């Protein structure tokens, strides 16, 4: 179980997260929703160790991880795919994916096994291993980023707006990957602006507002909740 308790965190100009409490059910896909500025991406950054909380705790299976560095969090089995480009543009697709296994680089056999497994999951990696990552389209980059995050066989995967800027075909490919993760028992914490898509991929939903959790439940409960419509509208208003 991934648990955040009373988390306060921000970027120097006040706290974005203001006493956030959140429990992510193991082997679930949890979608974090909310208007712009609610702190959705900040939750992922706090979990992955890229942002240290000012107050509160983050724990995985009862063990505190909020004081660990990002590489240490990664070695605990939590991988993050951020919103913007995470690839190395002048490295090939294969090199990029292999870099995902940086922490197991000395276990060559395991590294190759993982690479084959990831290439099976993401056909692009098998088809164009030598292509420079900088030449890929947005959708292709996303697939490689997700593939790379699976190299350490993480138990928890943090996905920040995986559908952002993608065409419908790429979105269905990303959706298929997320469904595949759920089937293989991974815990996925997903931030998504596309509410309909996000909830359709998820088992659970969390609605955030003002740096706190406003609603938490199964995906069906969140979808059917009477307040959701108004919150969605709030998210769609300019500067909302």
């Amino acid at each position, binding site marked *: 179980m991934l648990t955040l308790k009373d988390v306060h965190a921000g970027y120097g100009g006040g706290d974005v997260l203001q006493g956030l409490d959140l429990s992510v059910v193991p082997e679930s896909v949890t979608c974090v929703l909310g208007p712009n500025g609610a702190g959705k991406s900040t939750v992922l950054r706090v979990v*992955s160790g*890229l942002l240290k909380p000012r107050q509160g705790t983050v724990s995985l299976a009862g063990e505190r991880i909020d004081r660990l*560095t*990002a*590489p240490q969090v*990664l*070695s605990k089995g939590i*991988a*993050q795919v*951020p919103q*913007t*480009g*995470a*690839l*190395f*543009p*002048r*490295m090939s697709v294969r*090199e990029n994916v*292999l*870099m*995902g296994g*940086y*922490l197991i*680089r000395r276990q060559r056999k395991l590294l190759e096994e993982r690479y084959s497994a990831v290439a099976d999951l993401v056909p692009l990696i098998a088809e164009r291993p030598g292509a420079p990552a*900088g030449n890929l389209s947005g959708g292709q980059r996303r697939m490689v980023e997700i593939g*790379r995050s699976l190299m350490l066989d993480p138990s928890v995967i943090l996905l920040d707006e995986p559908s952002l800027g993608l065409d419908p075909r790429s979105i269905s490919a990303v959706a298929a990957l997320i469904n595949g993760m759920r089937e293989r028992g991974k815990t996925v914490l997903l931030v998504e602006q596309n509410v309909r898509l996000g909830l359709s991929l998820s088992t659970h939903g969390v609605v955030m507002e003002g740096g706190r959790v406003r609603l938490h439940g199964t995906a069906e409960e969140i979808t059917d909740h009477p307040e959701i419509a108004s919150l969605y509208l709030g998210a769609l208003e300019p500067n909302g």
Partner: protein
Amino acid sequence: MTQALQTIALGLLIGGVYALMAAGLTLVFGIMNIVNVAQGAFLVLIAMLTWKAWQLTGLDPILLALATTPLMFGLGWLLYRLVVVRVRGTTPAMSMLLTFGIALTIEGLLNLTAGNYFRSATPSYFAQSFHIGSIVLPKAQVYGCLAALLVLGLLYLVLNRTWTGRAIRATAQNPSGAALVGISASSVAALSFAIGTATAGTGGSILSVLYPFFPASHYEWIARLLGIIVLGGMGSLRGAWVGAIILGLAETITATYGSPRWATLVFYAVILLVLLVRPHGLFGTRLREDVAT
């Protein structure tokens, strides 16, 4: 014809040595956004140490690079951990101020301990040459260039065939992406700075034979090296290669067909022209963000 070939051969030999000296500078800038203006002072420091060791022991000055290169690797690592780390993440201007301070300290210490006059190591082959047909290649320049190419080859292998090199390249291309896969930014930075200064180890030993030097020679060297990497594109190793070869050729061609005193001017004129057409140098990228997203 012979004169032209002779000039080009000498230009390439000199260019190879310049390439090594500039590689360390551009590597450190590419990965850390740090302009290490102490690189020239590191070269002169090592040239002085090499000269002293050659005087005392008679050992070959270029072979002494086997000792000076690891020495500079260690010194670079220490300097990074103790001093340079403090300007990490600030502007390149801050790094220039800091490394300029390091350069002045080295110059001052050399003035105090070694005195302010020209030196040059002159091993037995100093005045000898290889003759290939009608082309004459001074042995010292050939050995110097070979040593430089060897170290550049090793650097290439480390950067492209080892995990350490991949981590360095990954950090240079996308620091936040590198953090996401578990690469420690501080370790990579210390290592890169150490590798950058280690190239000054080999470079300095070669310099002690090929060029007369004195403590304040570092101004002339850092100007040359900065010129090379600006021409090639700041942060680009390939650019440092091409910039170094152009400088080597510009110097020898101008010296042969004009006068040595015009050599530096011609090189800077080339830089000016290239920057007019390509403001980011021959192989420079506009902004790291452009390629990272």
